[in-house]
């Protein structure tokens, strides 16, 4: 059955890149930033977030290193690489095309 909060494939990666365009963040902060910016319309589950971060690191779109969070805990911080910045531009275009196509189907009468 359709899960209401399921994101389109690839969209989460795009949103993460967009978030990291503002600067280096740890995983928890990325999720909260996205939820806050979308007025909680999107819910970012840990089960999707961390695998996505892992995939993106493997692809060279983001770079991770250990740092200390605001609460003084050790956390992995993520930053966008130049390849990630290119990817963000391309996937933003893809998203527009994709969402326009869906809207077109939905508006057909």
């Amino acid at each position, binding site marked *: *059955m*359709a*899960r*209401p909060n*399921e*994101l*389109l*494939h*690839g*969209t989460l990666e*795009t*949103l993460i890149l*967009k978030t990291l*365009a*503002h600067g280096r963040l740890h995983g928890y902060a990325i999720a909260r930033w*996205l939820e806050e*910016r*979308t*007025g909680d*319309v*999107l819910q970012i589950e840990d089960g999707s977030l961390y695998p996505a971060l892992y995939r993106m690191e493997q*692809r060279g779109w983001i770079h991770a290193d250990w740092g200390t969070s605001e609460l003084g805990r050790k956390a992995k911080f993520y930053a966008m690489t130049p390849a990630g910045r290119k990817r963000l531009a391309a*996937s*933003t275009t*893809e*998203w*527009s*095309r*994709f*969402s326009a*196509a*869906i*809207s*077109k*189907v*939905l508006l*057909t*009468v």
Partner: protein
Amino acid sequence: MDDQNTDVIQGTLDMLILKTLSLEPMHGFGIARRVEQISRGVFKVNPGSLLTALQRLERAGWLDAEWRQTPNARRAKFYTLTRTGRKQLDTETADWHRRAAAIARLLKAGA
């Protein structure tokens, strides 16, 4: 990765199937062709995913299926949207617009 982006994934595929059937009853192949046509080829509907989705939607009570003759005299399963299916379509459409708008706003915002 780029290809996957234009693949219709599960939740969205369900919604597009319901939408297509809200126009008229159709068989599986017809649904796939219609979705591809309306989206001008942006979506490719994988036959395996389509069949699984149709089974799932039928089990959920959103579609009725019956065997009929196609225009070229073959037997095919025709799917019709049920009343609860229509309600589901309305819900999913509203959700989609809400999420798409939120994502679009976010992606548009300057870094």
